[in-house]
């Protein structure tokens, strides 16, 4: 035994006796580990452990393993599938708005020769990005209330007579999509503008010499070359959209129950934890949402083509 221990020790000593280059490499490795450790601890504590704990809660009840019972219970909840439908419709409306308008506006802004005008437009589009969460919804409460709205003429033209009418079930997905678009579109327009700037001018010039008009150039050259970024926007927005929470929550509070407390999946998960004291059910819903987000994220990291070097 002792001889083996000994030889292991000698081997270790031998390995530790390095040439100059080796020691630099090891010093680097040591400082690398030292620098990465605090962050790694946070990653574990607030990225990985919560997910593992949610998995544990979702598959147990009072500490005993119950298989898929919590999931089945949640799926049978009369509020679950309507919430899926609400979130689904919202996401479809929002993604269509985003893709069509962000791409169009980015191409239009990019086509403007006057630099100050193009810059001003991008800036104006981007400012609402400063508002997110409760404050942007709060602002939209005013915009959607025909009695005080700055655009009450528009609301009336659309047949909206009151705030409650504005957040009526038939209009709600559109209203939520417009709020989300208002807050987030500017950032994406700026990103798409950057992508357009990366397209070589020679390619565009060659197409123009061949007689292609601006629509043709946009459709056959610019949009295909922006594909990665459009995919990035769609995947990120899809993942974000499934998480819908603050908008319907604040609207629910302001609309006297016209918008339900259980409109979206996250609201339902919240109700499970806070109103029914059912952490297991809450974990089950969260886990379904988290699984969607993680799947999209992993897919994009490996297939999206934006992070090749990672």
């Amino acid at each position, binding site marked *: 035994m002792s001889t083996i221990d000994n030889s292991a020790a000698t081997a270790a000593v031998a390995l530790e006796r390095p040439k100059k280059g080796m020691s630099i490499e090891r010093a680097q490795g040591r400082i690398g580990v030292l620098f990465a450790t605090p962050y790694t601890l*946070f990653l574990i504590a607030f990225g990985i452990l919560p997910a593992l*704990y949610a998995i544990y809660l979702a598959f147990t009840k009072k500490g005993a393993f119950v298989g898929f019972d919590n999931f089945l219970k949640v799926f049978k909840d009369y509020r679950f599938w309507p919430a899926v439908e609400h979130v689904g419709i919202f996401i479809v409306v929002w993604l269509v708005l985003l893709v069509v308008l962000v791409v169009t506006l980015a191409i239009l802004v990019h086509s403007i020769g006057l630099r100050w005008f193009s810059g001003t437009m991008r*800036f*104006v589009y981007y*400012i609402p990005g400063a508002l997110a969460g409760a404050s942007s919804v709060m602002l939209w409460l005013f915009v959607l209330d025909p009695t*005080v709205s*700055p655009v009450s003429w528009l609301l009336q033209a659309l047949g909206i007579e009151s705030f409650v009418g504005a957040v009526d079930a038939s209009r709600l997905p559109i209203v939520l999509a417009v709020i989300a678009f208002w807050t987030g579109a500017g950032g994406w327009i700026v990103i798409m503008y950057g992508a357009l700037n990366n397209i070589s001018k020679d390619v565009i010039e060659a197409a123009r010499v061949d007689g292609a*008009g601006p629509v043709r150039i946009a459709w056959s050259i610019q949009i295909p070359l922006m594909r990665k970024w459009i995919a990035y926007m769609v995947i990120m927005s899809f993942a974000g959209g499934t998480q819908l929470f603050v908008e319907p929550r604040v609207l629910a509070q302001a609309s006297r129950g016209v918008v339900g407390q259980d409109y979206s999946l996250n609201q339902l998960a919240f109700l499970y934890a806070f109103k029914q004291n059912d952490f297991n059910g809450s974990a089950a819903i969260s886990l379904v949402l988290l699984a969607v987000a993680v799947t999209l994220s992993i897919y994009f990291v490996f297939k999206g083509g934006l992070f090749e070097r990672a």
Partner: protein
Amino acid sequence: MSAPNSEIVGTRLKDLTPGAWLGRAFGVLILIVFALFFVVPLLWLLIAPTKTDRQLLLEAPFALGDLGTLLSNWQSLMTFQGGLIWTWIGNSVFYCVAALVITLCISIPAGYALAMTEFRGRKLLLVVTLIVMLIPSTALVLPIFLELSAVRLIGNPLSAILPFSFYPFGVYLTYIYFSTAVSRDLLSAARLDGASEWQVFMKIAMPLSTPVIALVGFFSFTGNWNNYFLPYVTLPGRKAPIQVGLAELLSNVPAFNPTNAASTTITLSALALATLLAIAPVLLVFLFAQRYLVSGMTAGGTKE
């Protein structure tokens, strides 16, 4: 195809054919309509606190009120529950600044380590960081809440500060910055001159990293300031930050809750003023740091 040639970069207007001119004018019109869409609600918000509720209801939406009304709205907001709004704003400042400091202390070294050093598990850490970075932060809110309530941290300021400080996007930005903007040769040269690894980081890498520190700082601060869901579940009542407080105010506005019997009420104009106060810090950061933010957002995805 004889489509209007409106897309020409830098072409003079007088050189355009009538069709092209029309196409171009139409494009500009669309851009302006959307500019109005984005900016009108904000302009209205700047004006609303200068009016009384009655003026809000009856006068033209963009007619200015007066300074006296603004002051009285300010007064009524400040006296609401003994200046609760300042407690909320103070909480926000505390949580966001504490999280900002921790974020910078852990993200900058981590991004440096990922970009400039080799260690076991580096690649794994990088891939996991990427994956977690792309997950919407709201997806982890309830799991984090469940975890924090298991360790009895709910209601403690740490229950906001610690999760706020975990910012994988910041690590990624720093990683990108160091791997593209700082040359490894420079660091090697310093090592050959006898600098220790710590000195290399402090004396060479840190002075070069001011732009990325600013960038990570902006994103972390604005993101946390606007975060609603997490503090809403972990820090109720007087410990809430302003975003949560704002929604709380809403339940004291009779216009939106006619059945509410609360003794102190908030007028619509005061609510608009509160919204304005809640967004002011982030709005100022946006207005003055727009260039930084924009370049950072694009850097978030490109890796040349």
